[in-house]
């Protein structure tokens, strides 16, 4: 018996299947339902009008394609919203309980919707017009300094608000600000510097440089 053979023989006795939690099926089905995965497809004869509409849409799309417009998240139906948390317990057991409650909320109510999120640490600074960093006080239980955030996918603003209303932190003295995210999809692209950009007086008109820029902008504002 080879050594690999002995391993596979041993592990081969382990079960390959086991019953999943009953609630999981309902959670999966509910999520797919919310995403519009279910529903009868069109009967064969109904495809012609749909095809015509699609072609018309394509023509309109080609015409509109000349107009620069920022691409927006998400690729899937719905939008992305930032939940900004503030206030509530900031230390000790209270803080631990808020973190636990929010984690559980994210795991259950927001399951499959969270795109990202973090707790923010107490240190912070605001950069003034002169470029200097002014240290900011640590968040207090009764102020609006952000203490953390979630990026959440929701059908629309109303649903994002309704979901935020179920946040357990609201009963623990925190508040949640909901802001829609406008994704500019900044990417590296070549831009043409405007006439007045040269710091040392060197004319820069027409100079092309690689910068991070939102879509649809081939020139910096002059």
């Amino acid at each position, binding site marked *: 018996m080879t050594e690999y053979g002995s391993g596979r023989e041993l*592990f081969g006795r382990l079960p390959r*299947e086991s019953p999943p939690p009953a609630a*999981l099926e309902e959670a*999966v089905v509910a999520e*797919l339902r919310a*995403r519009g995965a279910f529903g009868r*497809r069109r009967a064969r004869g109904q495809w012609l009008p749909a095809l015509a509409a699609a072609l018309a849409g394509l023509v309109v799309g080609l015409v509109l394609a000349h107009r620069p417009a920022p691409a927006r998240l998400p690729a899937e139906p719905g939008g992305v919203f930032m939940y900004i948390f503030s206030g509530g317990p900031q230390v000790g057991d209270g803080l631990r309980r808020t973190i636990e409650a929010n984690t559980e909320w994210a795991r259950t109510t927001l399951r499959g919707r969270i795109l990202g999120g973090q707790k923010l640490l107490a240190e912070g600074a605001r950069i003034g017009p002169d470029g200097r960093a002014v240290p900011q006080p640590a968040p207090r239980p009764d102020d609006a300094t952000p203490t953390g955030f979630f990026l959440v996918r929701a059908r629309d603003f109303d649903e994002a608000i309704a979901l935020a209303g179920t946040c357990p932190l609201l009963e623990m003295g925190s508040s949640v600000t909901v802001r829609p995210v406008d994704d500019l999809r900044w990417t590296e692209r070549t831009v043409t510097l405007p006439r007045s950009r040269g710091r040392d007086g060197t004319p820069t008109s027409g100079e092309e440089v690689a910068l991070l820029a939102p879509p649809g902008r081939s020139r910096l504002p002059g």
Partner: protein
Amino acid sequence: MNEEEARFADDRSQVSRYLASREEQAFRELYRAHTPYLWRLALRLCGGRESEAEEIVQETWIRVSTLLERFSWKSALRTWMAGILVNCWRESRKRLRLAEALPDQLEDEATLPPGIELLDLERALAELPEASRAVVVLFEIEGYSHDEIGRLLGIPPGTSKSRLHHGRRALHGTLTAEGAIR
């Protein structure tokens, strides 16, 4: 028709039914046929953490539902789904920043003796470091080759071998310490 061919035919007809109707009930049948397998695999990859396994299985089904129309049937449906699940698991680990690095050097070959209680083995498996556990599960239980594991996990085949080696050695150590083997 052998068992594998019969399953292949069943899978095809179930998928066709779902894609033709997009009915919830047809999806549920597909779900019930394959989730016990996906659940067990997710649970093992997650080291027994049920909440994490639930998220991974849910995400897997969401992706399966989107990609199913494009599935070409060049492999078994279950193998394809397992690949998606492993990807979901990897992404989840990246998000949680729990990915572990293990040395790539292959040392002496570690082996596991037969005759261990299955519960001991399952528990020892759950205690393995993330990176080794994934390779042990995919190689020993799911029967993937090191090349296939390399593609699934985005690691060279040599790394897969060394992680298997480390995993076996760690399993041996755990089982010995627990008195499951002497």
